[in-house]
């Protein structure tokens, strides 16, 4: 272990340990609170905690995973209060430790007021105002919770960790209408608001945290979902458009401008007696207008297909194939390598995953997963600051234990 590693490890270990202890204490207090407060039907508490272990043979995924890392913890607590049959206030606070610099901070995941009312015997309309989860695919709304993900990690090729906050939720409103017909139900949702950006977003999108900042970050989104009433097939089409305006600082090597991002996702899900099959495709167009450094248009493409076999009520296994191309016109990264001098494997990623899930009862879950990965597009820069040190082929092994109440 080099001197650098020792210093970094000791810098993070002690504060991380304190943070985790404080979070555990907070969670236990929440657990006690949820039991002692008279559980009247109008207020509900839920909480969850997950602890994982990750080992990678090359590259770093959440902390120093090449040495094996436990820097994979998630804690969350949500509360939902019904003021009246049609009016609800919901909030969720989470905290994650994933080997990042801003680890363990409490994060307001969502906080919104929702009004929902039937307009006929087969339809209802609603409106959510506040910090709302973005309408992206099947898993964006529940990706923070282990029990809401199809595997240990939400498919990295669509649910990016690098621009997590930005993808996760926004401050504004979402209006929706649900219409139930004989065989299926249609749900139409649309909203607008202010996108969440921070220095992580800047690093992820621009390669560095420059001395300027995003401002006037707008987001517009819509999703159409259709699900059969027998809960077998579900489909969704999501579209999220964000305009991130950037104001350059004195030392920023480019002028003020903006980045336009267009996420379009097609989602399909089949839930049968023995098989659960999910597939999503995403087309992400990024248009940079920050002269003269960032002026390109990047049409990214990503997808995954997961097949889960339900062995019995408690056990299931899954296999998943996923792919991500930062530029669908440069899938092998050859043009990227020529233009930047960096390794071509930085712009694509192909994952094959195998997992085993055990849910012995409502509260507990244990998942084990092995991934074989070709390409490093889904790695984050903070844990892998030197692109030349990354390796194209790598394997990831992880175990995660989760508890909810």
């Amino acid at each position, binding site marked *: 272990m080099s001197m650098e590693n020792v210093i970094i490890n000791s810098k993070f270990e002690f504060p991380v340990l304190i943070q985790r202890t404080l979070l555990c204490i907070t969670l236990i207090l929440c657990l006690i609170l949820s039991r002692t407060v008279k559980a009247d*039907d109008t207020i*509900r508490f*839920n909480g969850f905690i997950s602890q994982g272990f990750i080992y990678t043979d090359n590259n770093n995924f959440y902390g120093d995973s090449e040495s094996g890392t436990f820097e994979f913890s998630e804690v969350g607590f*949500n509360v*939902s209060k*019904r003021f*009246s*049959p*049609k009016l*609800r206030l*919901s*909030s*969720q606070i989470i905290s994650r430790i994933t080997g990042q610099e801003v680890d363990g901070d409490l994060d307001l995941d*969502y906080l*919104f007021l*929702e009004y*929902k*009312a*039937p307009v006929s*015997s087969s339809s*209802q309309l609603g409106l*959510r105002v506040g910090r709302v*989860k973005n309408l992206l695919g099947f898993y964006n*709304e*529940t990706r*923070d*919770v282990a*029990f*809401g993900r199809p595997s240990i990690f939400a498919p990295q090729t669509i649910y990016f960790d690098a621009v997590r906050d930005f993808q996760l939720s926004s401050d504004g409103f979402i209006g929706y209408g*649900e219409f139930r017909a004989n065989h299926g*139900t249609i749900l139409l949702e649309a909203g607008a608001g202010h996108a969440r950006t921070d220095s992580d977003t800047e690093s992820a999108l621009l390669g560095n945290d420059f001395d300027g900042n995003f401002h006037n970050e707008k987001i517009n989104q819509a999703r159409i979902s259709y699900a059969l009433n*027998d*809960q077998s097939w579900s489909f969704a089409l999501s579209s999220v458009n964000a305009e991130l305006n950037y104001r350059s600082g004195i030392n920023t090597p480019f002028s003020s401008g903006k980045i336009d991002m267009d996420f379009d996702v097609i989602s399909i899900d089949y*839930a049968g*007696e023995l098989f659960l099959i999910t597939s999503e495709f995403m087309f992400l167009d990024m248009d940079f207008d920050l002269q003269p450094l960032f002026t390109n248009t990047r049409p990214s493409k990503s997808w995954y297909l997961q097949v889960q076999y*339900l062995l019995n*009520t408690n056990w299931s296994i899954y296999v998943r194939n996923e792919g991500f191309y930062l530029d669908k016109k440069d899938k092998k990264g050859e043009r990227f390598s020529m233009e930047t001098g960096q390794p071509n494997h930085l712009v694509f990623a192909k994952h094959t995953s195998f997992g085993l899930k055990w849910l012995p*009862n*409502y509260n507990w879950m244990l998942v084990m997963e092995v991934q074989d990965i070709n390409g490093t597009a889904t790695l984050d820069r903070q844990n892998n600051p030197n692109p030349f040190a990354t390796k194209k082929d790598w394997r990831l092994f992880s175990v995660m234990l989760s508890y909810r109440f």
Partner: protein
Amino acid sequence: MFSMHLQVWPDGSAVTVFVLADRNAIHQKFTKSQLRFFPYQLRRSWDKQVFSGTGDAPIVVKNIQQMKERVAETVGSIGYVPTNLLDEQVKKLEVE
């Protein structure tokens, strides 16, 4: 209503749903024969609503006796009971 999507009765009052635990044999039988779902499908639907803040999961009771008591004392609630254990406490709903 058991999928927790419809949260309000036609008269505007709130729906409260009681169920037995996911792995309870009576719950599994009710889900498959009356609702025509697999229990895990219901749980997936409830989880999605609970963890996105857009709905509640049903209240889980320990046994049929508790089910009858809770439904009887909670206005606007529904649950399920095997026919041979029905009594005056609750009103039976015919499902077409």
